[in-house]
């Protein structure tokens, strides 16, 4: 059995650092920080820890239905989603993850785009 990214990089110990760094970048980014106004930080960290663990093949899998439900009312744009994927890529780069692992996490995120982006009738995604 091949190990998941989650296991190879040292399990929760590394994921928690990634989450913490990623969270800082998200809050600092003018493109997405507005989405987090008034959001309970404890909840957000809880979700991001589980979500990032999921992306890396760790425990606590989020179903797509669940993702759709929690993002539905946020009206997340393509631009905001892209910014998040870039921030994630940069975070993983700065943690010296392998390019192949970064790509695989990126692909995992992209596959969930339809359940997170809920921009009503704007330019299509290409």
């Amino acid at each position, binding site marked *: 059995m091949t190990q998941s990214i989650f296991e190879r990089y040292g*399990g*929760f*110990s590394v994921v*928690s*650092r990634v989450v*913490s*760094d990623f969270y*800082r970048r998200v809050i600092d980014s003018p493109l997405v920080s507005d989405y987090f106004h008034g959001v309970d930080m404890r909840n957000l960290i809880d979700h991001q820890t589980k979500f990032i663990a999921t992306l890396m093949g760790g425990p606590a899998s989020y179903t797509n239905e669940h993702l759709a439900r929690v993002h539905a009312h946020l009206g997340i744009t393509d631009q905001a989603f892209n910014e998040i994927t870039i921030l994630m890529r*940069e975070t993983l780069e*700065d943690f010296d993850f392998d390019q192949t692992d970064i790509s695989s996490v990126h692909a995992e995120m992209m596959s969930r785009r339809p359940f997170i982006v809920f921009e009503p009738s704007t330019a299509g995604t290409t």
Partner: protein
Amino acid sequence: MTVEDGIIRQVVQSLSSAVAVADTISWELSFENALFFSWFESTDEHATADQRIPGFKADRASARMKENRPYGFDTVIEVRGRELPIRVEVRRLADSEEVALIECTDASKVQEIQYMLDSYSTLAERNARELQKERDRVEKLLLNIMPRAVFDELKDYGTATPQRFEEATILMLDFVGFTDMAVASDPSAIISELNDIFSSFDRIAETFGAERIKTIGDAYMAVSGVPEANPDHAANIARTALRIRRYLERRNAAHPQEWRARIGINTGPVIGSLVGVQRYVYDLFGPGVNLAARMETISDPMQITLNEATASLLEDDFVLSELGEFEIKGFGSQRLFRLESEIRSFRV
């Protein structure tokens, strides 16, 4: 220098972060505050940011600055003989493409919390692994006393419903004169031998697609076609019976204690069910089982006896010899056969 410049200078020098300004390509420093100077000491006054700050990747930093994206990482420095975890943040200063602000903060509090988290998560992960190991062990134990399909049903629904199997072949085995053997010789030695023999039977049954259902004293019961249907149930049991007999013959030739078995076989529908609440036993019921037991009782020592139900399924591939009509209690008149051997078809 104006008064305001002087104040700003004092503020920057007394910040609790180490701050420096650097060129985004060469990473030469054009300014650094006192803390930066003391944290990243260097004998070379022209040392660049990547030479001063351990873990600083100049190429990556330059690429990020070009895109006006932040760059950040954690590192560790040594201050007065003590390790100090540092968070480094690099971003472009205002709109200038050429100048970057490097800000380094003491991350020891964060690090402490991180270590606590690590210690706790290691504990939790170990507990989870141990729990999983324990679960696997319980599963293995339960699989010893019930078939996998029944176990899965029990696990998912908390109960397993009795199931009828239309096509199954049952093997019943019993040792001739076991009670006398146990009394005459050393009982514990006899039981230990019996255990060896039954374990070998289990392996034989498994090899030929059959499964042991239970043992009662010196009686052994195996089945094929339960709980997964198997079109070869009769042949599987016939092969199992022949191998068991051969195993006993060989064993008897090599051991002082002789074990002679009667084997009965019957084919018919059976009900499989888990019995018991606290102490589970998976068992088979129905006339199919009873008739197999009658076949065993009527069998001669070291012979395998069966009736037409099984014989009709075996006659193409096995050598059978007819024993004639017998009156079987509860089942009327039955034509009985002896299973002699398997016909080996050699394909070229």
